[in-house]
């Protein structure tokens, strides 16, 4: 049986189709899942896509974070499953307390930025998400957000061991140049730029596909 993934769709999600196709290309049997329904059993990977869940007219991710599907992520990860939140998905994971800290308005210019950037694989992590790249390796992918300034109230030391990728040129004032963060198990990844939009040569880069291919290898071995 092939590894099974789901893309949680919130009202206002808009990266759901991109993420679905990326999961499928990496080899996952993929379905969409309504955020208001509890997560089904037997999943290997849960994805939270980019977008504006519930409009994000309040703090980004806040209104989406108590959704029924989000409640199931901790148990899913405790069973050995993987989760990834991209952009708005990262904001939701942070608001739900599954990852530490907060994502604030971009600094110094608090407006929407979109451009191609590079992120760098940091340090030695025992995480399935990082098995496709080596420490120091740079991946090229687009960013597109207005609230991507990563902040932790206890300062950069509190997250030093959690940073999976850092910005080569920090575009939003994030603490510790953090572009992507892991939870203590290494199985939940929150990433602000868009690896799923850099997963095909046609899109201008396929560096992002490494994350999903590594996740797929992990899930296949687990089964």
């Amino acid at each position: 049986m092939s590894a099974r993934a789901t893309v949680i769709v919130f009202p206002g999600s808009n990266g759901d189709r991109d993420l679905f196709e990326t999961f499928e290309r990496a080899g996952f049997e993929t379905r969409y899942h309504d955020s208001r329904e509890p997560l089904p059993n037997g999943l290997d990977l849960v994805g939270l896509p980019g977008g504006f869940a519930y409009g994000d007219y309040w703090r980004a991710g806040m209104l989406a974070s108590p959704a029924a599907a989000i409640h199931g992520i901790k148990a899913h990860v405790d069973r050995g499953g993987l989760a990834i939140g991209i952009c708005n998905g990262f904001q939701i994971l942070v608001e739900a307390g599954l990852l530490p800290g907060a994502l604030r308005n971009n600094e110094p210019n608090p407006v929407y930025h979109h451009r191609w950037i590079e992120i760098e694989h940091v340090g030695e992590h025992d995480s399935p998400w990082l098995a496709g790249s080596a420490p120091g390796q740079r991946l090229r992918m687009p960013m597109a957000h207005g609230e991507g300034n990563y902040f932790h109230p206890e300062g950069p030391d509190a997250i030093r061991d959690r940073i999976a990728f850092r910005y080569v040129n920090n575009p939003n004032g994030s603490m510790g140049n953090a572009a992507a963060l892991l939870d203590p198990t290494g199985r939940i990844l929150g990433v602000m730029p868009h690896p799923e939009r850099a997963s095909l040569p046609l899109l201008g880069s396929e560096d992002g596909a490494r994350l999903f291919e590594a996740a797929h290898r992990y899930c296949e071995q687990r089964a």
Partner: protein
Amino acid sequence: MTTWNDTQALEAAKEMGISSSEYDAIRARIERIPNPFELAVFAGMWSEHCSYKTTRSRLRAMPKNGDAVLAGPGSHAGVVDVGEGWGLAFKIESHNHPSAVEPYQGAATGVGGILRDIVAQGARPVAVMDSLCFGVADSPRTRHLRESVVAGIAGYGNAFGVPNIGGRVRYDDRYAGHPLVNALAAGLVRHDAMRSAEARGVGNPVLYVGARTGRDGILGAAFASVELADDTTEQRSHVQVGDPYTGKKLMEALLRFGVEDGLKTV
């Protein structure tokens, strides 16, 4: 009850941007004194925004027929055949007046309006572009307009989930105080999923759906026909406040229900 006479009606008409000759034409058409509601309807439908009354002759000169044209004038958006069963729907709109008085919302709702037209045609929007003209680049007024217009276009497209793939900006003294804000949206549609703007048959239920309406945006279409005042503060309430979240949900709902589900026209 006070009487409603020609003088009052004409005065109300002028406030909504209807000229004396247009008022006479309305009067002749309905053969009585129009009431304020009727005037507001005419003000909207005969506005530059809706009827293109000053540009109509130029629009007529543009090409609109061809083998690849799947939908032309009269539809929500133009559609051309791009092969393999796909059509490309596209629509351009200018939001010059609203952007001059309330640049963020004026530009944002310009994008929202054309995305609406693409979706109404049955297509899924895939791209936005813009063409902007401002006064001289280094004036503080231009800087304010440019930053707010660009933020409005970017903000709506980002929340809706459609990338802005290009555009151009021009600076010239002639545009000082009268910026041009043109936006283009494009979408993809299967030939057999195209919708028409035309409703036929009697007894069909009509659903009127959209973002919540407030005091903002009232008489906004008519406002596009009147000369901009020097102090535009009072005209800001004519500009609608955009709600891309509701627009996005509406798009997903509309694209999910096809003709076979009973949705005959949009």
